[in-house]
């Protein structure tokens, strides 16, 4: 019998192979390709033809829509993440307040809440586009009759992006509810009772007892929502196609319509991708570091 104890048996390296293939195909190879394509002449027919220096990057930064699309992506991701996390946490607290009484449960309402989450984003876009249609949309009609004048949130460049944020929040808030609700079940009732016997108000109970337990989950969910927000593409493509004007052109959509539609300017699209990748990388790494520090401070 071998003298090594079974506990120190090593996980064989070949088990890492399938996930490494995924990382190479989806992260390493695309990064190398995008960097290479950013500095060469590339067409759909023939990639990486000849070195062109910074011509693609210059072209990307001079594209009217691009700089704005980066700002819109950032605004979209941050506002959607904050809104979804805030609303989702509030709904989870409401659900907990009800189940705490011992009646009902996550049950029926929980199932209903899952539905927006599992609806494919394209279908979400179709549904909301129809709801908000200037003629025939039930929501716009209802609002118009309440306000007394025609309302068309998707038709105005000042409100279209905000409307898309709200639609995205509709889809992604349930994830927050689900995860924060599960974390709330970890808050012991005895502590809540003790707090209430000590005469602590609802707000004080929340800050002293509930929040410390659920804070790590809420921060994780906020991070997750931020990542999801940065990926936005479907809603823009289906609901507004970037309009009115350029008001809802987010970076993903700009890359897509530059490289795979219109002039098929792959080089410029690659340069845009590079800038977007760096921006998203910097923001997510920054937030991730903040999260780790907050977790460290807690411990």
């Amino acid at each position, binding site marked *: 019998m071998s003298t090594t104890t079974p506990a120190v048996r090593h996980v064989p390296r070949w088990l890492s192979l*399938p*996930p490494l293939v995924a990382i190479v195909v989806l992260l390493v190879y695309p990064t190398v390709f*995008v960097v290479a394509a950013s500095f060469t002449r590339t067409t759909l027919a023939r990639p990486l033809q000849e070195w062109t220096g910074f011509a693609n990057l210059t072209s990307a930064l001079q594209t009217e829509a691009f700089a704005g699309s980066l700002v819109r992506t950032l605004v979209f991701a941050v506002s959607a993440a904050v809104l979804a996390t805030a609303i989702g946490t509030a709904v989870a607290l409401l659900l907990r307040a009800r189940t705490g009484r011992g009646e009902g449960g996550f049950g029926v309402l929980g199932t*209903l809440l899952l539905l927006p989450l599992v609806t494919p984003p394209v279908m979400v876009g179709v549904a909301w586009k129809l709801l908000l249609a200037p003629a025939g949309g039930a929501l716009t009609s209802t609002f118009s009759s309440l306000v007394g004048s025609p309302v068309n949130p998707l038709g105005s460049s000042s409100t279209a992006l905000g409307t898309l944020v709200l639609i995205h929040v509709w889809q992604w808030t349930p994830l927050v509810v689900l995860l924060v609700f599960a974390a709330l079940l970890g808050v012991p009732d005895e502590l809540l009772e003790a707090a209430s016997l000590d005469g602590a108000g609802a707000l004080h109970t929340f800050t002293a007892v509930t929040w410390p337990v659920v804070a790590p989950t809420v921060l994780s969910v906020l991070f997750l929502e931020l990542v999801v927000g940065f990926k936005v593409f479907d809603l823009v493509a289906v609901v507004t196609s970037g309009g009115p004007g350029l008001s809802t052109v987010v970076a993903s959509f700009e890359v897509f319509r530059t490289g795979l539609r219109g002039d098929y300017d792959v080089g410029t699209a690659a340069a845009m991708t590079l800038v977007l*990748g760096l921006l998203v990388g910097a923001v997510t790494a920054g937030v991730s570091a903040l999260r780790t520090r907050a977790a460290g401070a807690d411990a």
Partner: protein
Amino acid sequence: MTQLADQRPIAAAQEAAVDPAVNSSSTTTSAAELEQLRRARPRGPHRRSPLAQVGVRLALALVAVVALAPVAFLVSLSVRSTDDVLTGSWLPGGFGELAWGNWSAAFRTIPLAHMLANSWLVALGSALVTAVVAVPGAYVTARAGKRGARLSAALLAGYCAPPVVAVLPLFFLLKEVGLTNSVVGLALVNGLANAPVAVWLLDSFVRRVPVELEEAAWLDGLSVAGGLRRIVLPLIAPGLVAALLVCTFLAYGEFLFAVSFAQTTASQPLTVGLSLFQGDRTVQFGQQAAAALVGVVPVYVLAVVAQRWLVGGLSQGALK
């Protein structure tokens, strides 16, 4: 309340928060466990005024209405004529005038049945690919110490990058290997792209399998990989079901890769077909709603049937 008295409950609460995960070494879904925890707990004297109770219920009812309204409106639209839709009302205008024809017309306007089949082929095929990648992946992240942590970080980076970053490079790669305009190509790409999500969800399921069980198997002569297949895999099955369901939904609803890599009608999934509806000059409200519902309803049925697994897998996988 003094500062000191304030802090003790917090520490206790934090311990308790970790507790459910530690206690439950079994692999039943955590939804069931959480439910048990909730029921086992004595009904505390959270005395809320009747007014507050009504407020909570009203707010939750509002949440339910907001969650359901868009899909309910799709159902309403799908049986209405354009004239009826243009009244802007939420419900069909008159009895006996329901335009059921929208449903069959939707199947003629775009090759809906074919696209639906493509969507499910991509979704199920990709789930298979994801499983092949994620089961060993999660075992490595959970059990291989520093190497596992590095893999975990790399997968997280892969997930955080917006998919549009990979679109152009993958387009050329798929073209090179002849997998553009192909359901197989889409299944492969989606399967790999969703692997980080599945690994992330499965990791905590693997961690909860007692190492002692594996050690016993190794003593009996099984290799580490053999232990993974014979001991770990059956125990993480509920987590695997949940993770693969999530990934199936993600692949089924995926749009960016599909619209970039599938230019032929024969290879396009439903998400692309629905986006093409938009291009029409006259908006066919009823048909479009019916087509969207054809795509949504199977997902809803699956989500409701598998709710326990989904909720359990998501909350347990995500709360570490």
